[in-house]
């Protein structure tokens, strides 16, 4: 049995998205910037895709800028706000400790370049940013606040609307990384009230290498990639029309079925959570309620994540882990550490991320395999031996 439970990393492209892309390889292949008929056909298709994406976010088409993905959208939003802020003497940035590196690393690069950076802590285990902490951190010289809508590792959904209200009242720009949220939970940019928001096509069964930055009408946005007038001078480079059309189709499909899909995934997610809670010394990471419908994240004491992951792989199950060994660095996940997990426990983490294709049979099979593997690894673990000895 082959079970793909790494949908937070990337998803299988949908049939609708694949079909939507087909005409753009050898029929509508003109450059949208060209004035001839070939170009205009492409330009029209680009406009239709933009309108469709805007509609599914409750945005207007002029508020959507296509990018190469979520990382570029985050980078553009952050560097733009920082440069615009610096021009007016505002050199303070705020973000949270559990952001994706596509937000954290630009923020740290700006700090190295002379900005002051406040990294807000999150609540233990759940990962919520306290709105009061944000309120206390806001300053007259704050150039940008960037807090993610939903966390990629532990699935926590932040109360973004409460935070944007605070910032809007003080005219402080607000960016939200919504890469994991769009297509999975309702995302209404008017209700969220952020100035900029990033999304990525391949997280909701669209193609890879395409994303978008929403920028509220009237909010200033600088280009990040220079060298062309595309995207109303905000993003140089010939538009990736096949991927844009694919992403638009994938988003339409995801939003059309969002309630049904979320109910299906939430039910399976909660079975996995309940099942994994049965394991002695296991800890759910993130909030049980305010979490993405497809996210399951646990730490198992006494074992290490990479070993767990690779043994699951031998059983056909694909998951991910926040252990140091899987990150390629020597540190376990910054998100799990920010949630208050000690290093030795953070090493034993497992993330399973579901999709609309996940089945009951797959969940049952996965649970049974995890029980066996955790037990097996613990039997050979001197750390587990110590934990058991301390208990007795």
């Amino acid at each position, binding site marked *: 049995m082959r079970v793909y439970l790494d949908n937070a990393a990337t998803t299988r492209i949908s049939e609708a998205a694949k079909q939507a892309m087909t005409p753009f390889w050898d029929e509508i292949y003109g450059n949208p910037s060209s004035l001839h008929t070939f170009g205009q056909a492409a330009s029209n298709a680009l406009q239709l895709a933009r309108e469709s994406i805007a509609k599914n976010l409750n945005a207007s088409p002029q508020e959507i800028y296509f990018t190469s993905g979520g990382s570029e959208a985050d980078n553009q939003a952050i560097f733009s706000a920082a440069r615009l802020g610096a021009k007016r003497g505002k050199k303070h940035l705020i973000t949270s400790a559990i952001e994706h590196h596509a937000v954290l690393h630009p923020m740290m690069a700006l700090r190295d370049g002379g900005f002051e950076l406040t990294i807000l802590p999150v609540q233990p285990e759940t990962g919520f940013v306290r709105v009061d902490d944000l309120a206390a951190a806001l300053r007259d010289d704050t150039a940008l606040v960037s807090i993610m809508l939903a966390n990629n590792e532990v699935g926590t959904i932040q109360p973004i609307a409460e935070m944007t209200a605070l910032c809007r009242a003080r005219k402080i720009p607000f960016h939200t990384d919504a890469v994991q949220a769009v297509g999975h939970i309702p995302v209404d940019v008017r209700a969220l009230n952020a100035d900029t928001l990033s999304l990525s096509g391949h997280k909701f069964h669209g193609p890879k290498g395409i994303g978008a930055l929403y920028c509220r009408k009237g909010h200033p946005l600088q280009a990040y990639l220079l060298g062309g007038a595309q995207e109303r001078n905000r993003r140089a480079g010939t538009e990736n029309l096949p991927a844009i059309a694919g992403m638009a189709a994938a988003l339409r499909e995801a939003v059309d079925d969002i309630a049904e899909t979320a109910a299906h995934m939430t039910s399976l997610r909660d079975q996995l959570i309940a099942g994994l809670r049965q394991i002695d010394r296991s800890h759910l990471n993130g909030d049980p309620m305010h979490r993405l419908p497809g996210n399951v994240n646990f730490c198992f004491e006494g074992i290490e994540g990479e070993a767990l992951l690779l043994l699951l792989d031998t059983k056909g199950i694909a998951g991910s882990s926040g252990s140091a060994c899987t990150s*390629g660095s020597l540190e376990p996940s910054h998100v799990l550490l920010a949630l208050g997990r000690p290093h030795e426990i953070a090493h034993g983490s497992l993330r399973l991320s579901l999709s609309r294709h996940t089945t009951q049979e797959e969940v049952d099979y996965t649970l049974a395999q995890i029980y066996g593997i955790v037990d097996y690894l613990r039997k*050979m673990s001197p750390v587990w031996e110590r934990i058991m000895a301390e208990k007795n």
Partner: protein
Amino acid sequence: MAMGYSDKVMDHFINPRNVGEIENPDGVGEVGNAKCGDIMKVYLRVEDGILIDVKFKTFGCASAIATSSMATELIKGKPVADALELTNRAVVEALDGLPAVKMHCSVLAEEAVRSAIKNYYDTHGIAYNPALFAGLDEEHDHGDLAEEV
């Protein structure tokens, strides 16, 4: 091949040799720390100066388990003095290589064996040159160890 591991690493990870404990061992050594993500514990049974049995328990990633397994295989049945000559390089070679970021696991396996032998010497009143075990009690540090290979 997962994570760039050789077939031999995967074999020793999935089917580790000599897993377990020895009751009342003649020597036991534990190295690493859980904070870094790997701990290895090696148990020895010695008869007439020969390692007639070796077992291990490991908390760690696939390469930590595989290097423990291979290190115990390499010394089992050998005279204690020969086992002391085990190098991390020999463990890596026997496994057909390790990814660069995992080299510290082989160093840890070598240290676990040496630590168990030191414990055997200490508990059996066997005299030895302390220089043989230089550096063993130092704090485990990935950064330094990675440079050794």
